[in-house]
């Protein structure tokens, strides 16, 4: 039987990778992938806590809702990115800085 700690360590690694991706990537799609990693680490946490505590389904329920949210967020984000791409033909966040003074 796999211990709870294994899942927690994996999810912590996935979470850190996600944060690192967000901070490091210049491409907007890359940043979005980092966000997906964070949300998946959240799901993993919720599901493993639900499995290893006293049969509460709350955690699994939250995980399902977060999947839906992630899909909705990706849909809106891609629409926004497409809009930007039409304007500038690139999606590099370091170059999208029209409003810096």
């Amino acid at each position: 039987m796999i211990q709870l700690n294994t899942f927690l360590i994996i999810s912590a690694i996935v979470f850190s990778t996600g944060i690192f991706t967000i901070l490091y990537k210049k491409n907007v799609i890359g940043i979005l992938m980092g966000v997906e990693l964070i949300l998946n680490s959240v799901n993993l946490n919720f599901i493993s806590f639900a499995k290893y505590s006293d049969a509460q389904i709350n955690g699994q329920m939250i995980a399902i809702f977060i999947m839906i949210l992630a899909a909705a967020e990706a849909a809106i984000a891609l629409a926004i990115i497409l809009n930007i791409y039409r304007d500038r033909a690139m999606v590099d966040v370091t170059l999208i800085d029209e409003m810096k003074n």
Partner: protein
Amino acid sequence: MNNLESLQFFIPELFLTAGLLVTIIVELLLKKEQKVFTAYLAATVLLITIFFLIRQYAIEPAALFGGMVVIDPMAVFFKILTAVSTLIIVFFSIPSFRVKAEYYVLLLATTLGMMLMAQVNDLLMIILAMELVGLVSYVLAGYRRSDPKSGEASLKYILFGAASTGIMAFGFSYIYGLTGQTNLFEIQQALQSTQHNPVILFVAFVLIIAGLGYKIAMVPFHFWLPDVYEGAPTPVTAFFSVGPKAAGMAVLIRFIISIVAGVSADGQTFTANAPIHAQELLAVLAVLTMTLGNLSALQQKNIKRMMAYSSIAHAGYMLMALAVFTSQSVEAVMFYLVVYMFMNFGAFWVIHRMTPHLGSEEITAYTGLGYRAPLVAVAMGVFMFSLTGLPPLAGFIGKFYLFAAVIKAEWYILAVLGVLNSVVSLYYYAYVTKVMFLNRGDDESAVSISSYDTALLLVFLIPTLVLGVYWVPVISWATQSLHFFLG
């Protein structure tokens, strides 16, 4: 309470949802020149929703839908506040969004999300309600598709928003892991009855504060705000500056009174559930928020950007009061949000209507406005001094209650830092007034304003003036609403 029984206490939200769907259908049936009617329809829906909400004050505090949401006077207060702010924004937007009917549908959807945020009682509901507000806000920020600034604003908003929601949810997962519960009050009981590892609790607390702090623009999660405020269409900026912020404050208050601290039965004393120094952390963040907001606002040349930093500073003042964890501070924040709504909307209304005449959003473009449009300039001056917190304007009373709450809790250093910040803010607010009245510009032609513009200006100006001398009804409304559902 089970789901069917709960429905009777959920009438405003159900009505708003129905109204939202009807607005979408009606929009399809209208010809292009008639589309402005969807705005009036949305306003009617909001008015009826507010009417239903006022009747909810009679309801005894209870948990609905198996504990997913609660209904208590504090929730009703924030629901009314957010619905009123959206109603004002509908009228705010009519001159600029005449043919874009789905805009009003998006506003109604955000209002639904904000009303849910005001009454969350479960980790799942916090995530869902905040995302409902967030997802619609991202679209609203990028509403002018032809304007590259608008697209950039929505891109920055969604990237920061999605990341901070994820971080917050990660914090929630640890809370769930520690307590095995998702209901806020069951979490509270679990935290009070057993000792948990304070380090993990502190980490979870910091992660959650990242998500909530992003919503209310707390330093260091404020990076999105100046760009979003500058890039988004001005009515949308005004909308973001009050409604979602008030809803974020509501979630923060719920979070404080349930997970971070426990409230005594009379609602007066707050005791921390775990020794994680939440108050000290919030106080430090509050000072950072207002200082950074004010110091950055000093350097701004664009008036919308200046207002963005000023709104960060105001979030700092409210956070300062919340950090002391007393019922008086919650009441002060509630009162301040009402006052802030009028003065901030007023300032944005002036910016919104004057930009086409002045041709620019630079502060220097306002040079000599006092001679070109006296009423507008005087009103702008009033809003600016009210935002600074000078008597006898509404902003002074609002700030007075905030500082009174902090001083009564004997956090003197925090109060002194807050007052110093207010002094700094006087410079950039007064600067706007100075260029309007003391300087004369090249163009001295009178700016004509329509009667609609004047009427809406008075809607903001009169409360800003009146609440400065007669604020008793609003503060007693806040006091009455200071009644939480406590599990």
